């Protein structure tokens, strides 16, 4: 995973609450076995009409929005299906952070795993950012090290789990870190009750 320190760039406002992962990346794109190549299908049903033609005005079809780094959305972003493809699609399109009043638990976890920065700010601050984001050239800075978001006169601090922050800043691989606890895992395994199910006999 690449380290995440500062995300700086333009924004895209998506003023809707409860945006589910089925909207972010519809199921017909989940049969791929790769981690990449989802960006062009981001928000497919909102970006294309029934015949597959681009929907005018949706940000994925707006040249002025190309290159944006931060998505600003409503409450409970990423609810529903656990598909990590949703995070991959958002990153693949070019976003490096999502700002919202709240995130669904699984989506937030998946973002941390893939190095997409989910930033929770109070609803009023998100509304302010959304208004600023109407200007496709407005620049926002999300600084993970200082845990602040800056956009023009707006400056807001955000909370993030310190363990996660540290891992994101260093771009560390979770499996490698966990295996430093190999001895503890083995000790745990040695005392598990014998009746617990196994799919095949060892």
């Amino acid at each position, binding site marked *: 995973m690449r380290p995440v320190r500062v995300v700086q760039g333009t924004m895209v406002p998506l003023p809707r609450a409860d945006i589910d992962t089925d*909207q972010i990346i519809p199921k*017909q794109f*989940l049969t791929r076995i790769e981690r990449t190549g989802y960006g062009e299908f981001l928000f497919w049903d909102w970006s294309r009409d029934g015949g597959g033609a681009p929907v005018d005005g949706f940000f994925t079809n707006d040249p002025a929005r190309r290159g944006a780094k931060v998505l600003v959305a409503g409450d409970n972003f990423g609810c529903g299906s*656990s598909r990590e493809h949703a995070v991959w699609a958002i990153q693949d399109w070019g976003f490096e952070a999502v700002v919202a009043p709240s995130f669904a638990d699984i989506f937030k976890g998946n973002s941390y*795993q893939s190095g997409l920065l989910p930033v929770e700010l109070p609803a009023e601050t998100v509304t302010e950012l959304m208004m600023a984001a109407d200007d496709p050239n407005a620049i926002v800075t999300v600084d993970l090290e200082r845990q602040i978001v800056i956009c023009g006169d707006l400056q807001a601090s955000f909370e993030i789990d310190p363990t996660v922050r540290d891992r994101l800043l260093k771009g560390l691989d979770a*499996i490698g870190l966990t295996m430093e606890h190999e001895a503890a*895992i083995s000790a745990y395994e040695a005392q598990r009750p014998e009746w617990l*199910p196994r*799919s095949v006999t060892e």
Partner: protein
Amino acid sequence: MPGRTLFEKIWNRHVVTGDDPALLFVDLHLVHEVTSPQAFSGLDFNGRKVRRPELTVATIDHAIPTVDRHVMIRDPQSRKQVDTLRQNCARHGITLFDLDDPRQGIVHVVGPENGFTQPGMVIVCGDSHTSTHGAFGALAFGIGTTEVEHVLATQTIWQRRPKTMAVEVDGELPLGVAAKDMILGILATIGVRGGTGHVIEYRGEAVRGLSMEERMTVCNMSIEGGARAGMIAPDDTTFAYLEGRPHAPKGAAWERALDDWRSITTDPDATFDEVTRVSAPSLIPHVSWGTNPGQTVAVSDVVPSPDHFDDPLERDSAARALEYMDLRPGTPITDIPIDHVFVGSCTNGRISDLREAARVVEGRKVRDGVSAVIVPGSMQVKAQAEKEGLDRIFRDAGFSWRDAGCSSCLAMNPDVIPAGERCASTSNRNYEGRQGRGARTHLVSPAMAAAAAINGHFVDVRDWR
């Protein structure tokens, strides 16, 4: 020492190291074709192995056809994805319930029916409906693909300690009101974000009175309230379901397990971070009218007006949902015509669900113009239904009788609902485009779906005769 909840007891006994976040040991890792390929390729790329293949079980369910599946999966990408799972399981020594295996089925149906799912366990799967397994008094939750890779490599997972929420369902569930109506009623109460950051324990007289399959329906949709997991304390109903299942403990081990399982229930003096009460006697069959599972009303009610919502965001969301669903405020729910009926999914694809649907259908015909489909949750459910003659009842009525899989619940396979058409569905999500682009989903119980198939519109199954 203060009393502890079921959740706290299971959490504490699975901590390998750390506090918050804690590294939890995973007793059972369920795997399917859609969320695992990138996890396996990550392992291969780093030269890692699966730490405990015998604590891992794989099945094929999400993207497979429910007809003629032994011929060939037509979609080349789905076929490649299924073949990839086969290769990954073979290479890493993981048991796979392949398409020719009589145990194949939806991951959250096959775990319990084979006795893998047991009280007190930590269970994960790259699927948000893993909360289903909480019905046994297990801590079970959905994870993403990077976490799937982590569990494959380490048999553990890092977790922040969630908060606890008790949902107390008091009184008795009325006749004709299903477990599905109970969970839809709970979701209407707590909303689609009410459970965020929490693990729910469903409690109370009405919950104790549910069968195991009904409990699975309730726990299954915990994620629809945003909860990390949902669980129900194990009791004699749980033990009776488990006894004799292929992977359940046997002989002296069964007795030891029983003693242990009885000790993990919530202590009388334990407290929850939040408590919500729902009255079972006031529950009625529910039908969803909108595009999230919190947007439901009683079948006897009408489509609500966005003006009924005080919160401006809820109002916008309702207006947008009504537009997508092509519904007018004030329309009686029983006046809504139906084009499709889907009975199946990890929510309502078990044998008791098919029995409920068959009871409604027996001796009747599916309304002209309605396409009605039954997709058993597993091939064992299918075999049992055929033994009981349920398939005949459905076929005679004009239902299509399929092989097991997730099917129209998420429509990754060919069972897609066409744009603009309306489906009464026993599944769990009514999001825009969930069952197909432009498709309109109404979430209901199996009996309500079956009755809608016969009538061509919704009816109150409490009046069924």
